[in-house]
């Protein structure tokens, strides 16, 4: 293990205001590559705002003001000259509620590749398909040399969903369970090969068994991706993360290795939170 892990995200004096109300106050952090970083803190403490600043999803909010510096791989991502589309391909996101598109399982994964201009082997629209969705033979798909087909298979395998869905890839994604939908969303996010995966309370709507599957998945994903995860579940943060950041009232009060934050926090307020005194 290296003593000084490589930094992938660097945040300097980040301030965010919604409608003049300050949501983030002077946040500074260096996030290490290929690690899992948990962001904890009470509701409204700014952790989701912080997460959404990393892929510029905050841009969608009207009347927002962002100041400070964020750089990913040494390149600044704030500012009007930045290619936000490219940024979001590098920084994937998984939301709190599973958000599959109203499409088939296959099409959900293929979508991210299609918007990049990759051509799929079969047309997404066929006259026959309107009346009876065509069945996708998974043996053929696995053997396919088409890039989109191969990526769909690999992403579903990486998201540990392949065995559960390979017989019904043409079915609507809405027919999957909540936990499967969330893993589908993770598969969709990793299909476009991001460097970083942002997760906004991905397990808060799921049962313990589905949660366990997602946690195992995150553990495997960190070999290829940097995972930044917002969670309200303290034991989850302790189980899966290498580093933990504690947000309190818009400030990143404490940021360090997970064992440090949970065993030996520097601030009294962090200690009270991780002990469960409030929040």
């Amino acid at each position, binding site marked *: 293990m290296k003593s000084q892990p490589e930094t992938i995200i660097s945040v300097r004096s980040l301030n965010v205001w919604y409608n003049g109300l300050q949501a983030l106050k002077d946040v500074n952090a260096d996030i290490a590559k290929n690690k899992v970083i948990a962001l904890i803190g009470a509701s409204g403490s700014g952790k989701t705002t912080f997460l959404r600043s990393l*892929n510029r999803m905050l841009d969608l909010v*009207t009347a927002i003001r962002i100041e400070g510096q964020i750089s990913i791989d040494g390149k600044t991502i704030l500012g009007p000259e930045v290619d936000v*589309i490219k*940024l979001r*391909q590098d920084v*994937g996101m998984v939301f709190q509620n599973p*958000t599959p598109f109203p499409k088939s399982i296959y099409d959900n994964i293929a979508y991210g590749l299609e*918007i990049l201009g990759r051509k799929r082997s079969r047309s997404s629209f066929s006259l026959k398909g309107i009346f009876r969705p065509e069945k996708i033979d998974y043996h053929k798909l696995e053997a396919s040399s088409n890039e989109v087909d191969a990526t769909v298979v690999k992403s579903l395998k990486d998201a540990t969903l392949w065995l559960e869905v390979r017989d019904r890839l043409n079915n*609507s994604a809405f*027919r999957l369970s909540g936990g499967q939908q969330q893993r589908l969303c993770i598969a969709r996010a990793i299909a476009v090969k991001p460097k970083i995966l942002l997760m906004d309370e991905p397990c808060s709507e799921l049962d313990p068994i589905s949660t366990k599957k997602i946690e195992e998945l995150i553990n495997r994903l960190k070999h290829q991706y940097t995972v930044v995860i917002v969670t309200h579940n303290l034991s989850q943060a302790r189980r899966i993360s290498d580093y933990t950041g504690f947000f309190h009232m818009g400030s990143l009060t404490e940021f360090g290795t997970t064992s440090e934050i949970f065993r030996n926090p520097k601030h009294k307020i962090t200690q009270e939170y991780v002990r469960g005194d409030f929040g």
Partner: protein
Amino acid sequence: MNLSKFSSENLYFGIFRMVTFSMVLVFVGIILILLINAGPALNLHFLTADWVQSDITKGGIYPAIVGSFYIGIGVALISLPLGIGTAIYLTEYSSGNLTKRIIQLAIRNLAGVPSIIYGLFGLAFFARTLALGTSLIAATLTLSIMTLPWIISASVEALNAVPHSFREASLALGATKWQTIKNIILPRALPGCLTGSIIGIARTMGETAPIILVGATFFLSRLPGSIYDKFMALPYHIFILATQHPSPNAPQYASATAVVLIGLIILINLGAILARYYFKKHEA
């Protein structure tokens, strides 16, 4: 105490039920009266034969059905893309600013403009200024702008009903706004846009006042051969038969034509309902 509560509950329930049933009764009543008045005039020959001006009992209203059909298709072709496009701009591209509010206000007011005013506008602008004459195309354009507010409202509603999470999820994957609209939002909203719009188009097909001014005619010996020809249309045909035709059989034939028009509109609305049902079943 309990008894009075119970009976007042029954009273109000009864009132609402009565109001609802009376509406249904009015509808059934209209259809029945028209059917009775139409009597034997309503037959296959009446639907498929050309109009015979000298003896209305010998002819049919085929040209008027075709004329109304052309109008419906034309209005759909022109107003659907314009209306859905406007709705996309309003819901997806414009933020809640002054321009958007002014546009929305204009659309709401357009919906309230009486149809005869649209007719006058069509006559002045399409028929005269653009020199299209009183013709099928002038009437189609006039009715299209009249239908636009309906289509925009229906489409805005359908687009707003698409969950915000779909937009976020697509943008977070690195999709552009247009890719998101084209691939995610529009496919989801289109059934709602279409079904709402079809009902608006069906209403327009029953309009009489505007088409009197811009090209409908009571009697044509042949079907319109080009978009610059005059045309027959069902609502105008009813109007003339009911008010100006000398034949003693005219009222009977007006009723028969009215049944055909209502039937046509019910058929179109039924199509919209079936389409909605089909899309609902297949989306999840």
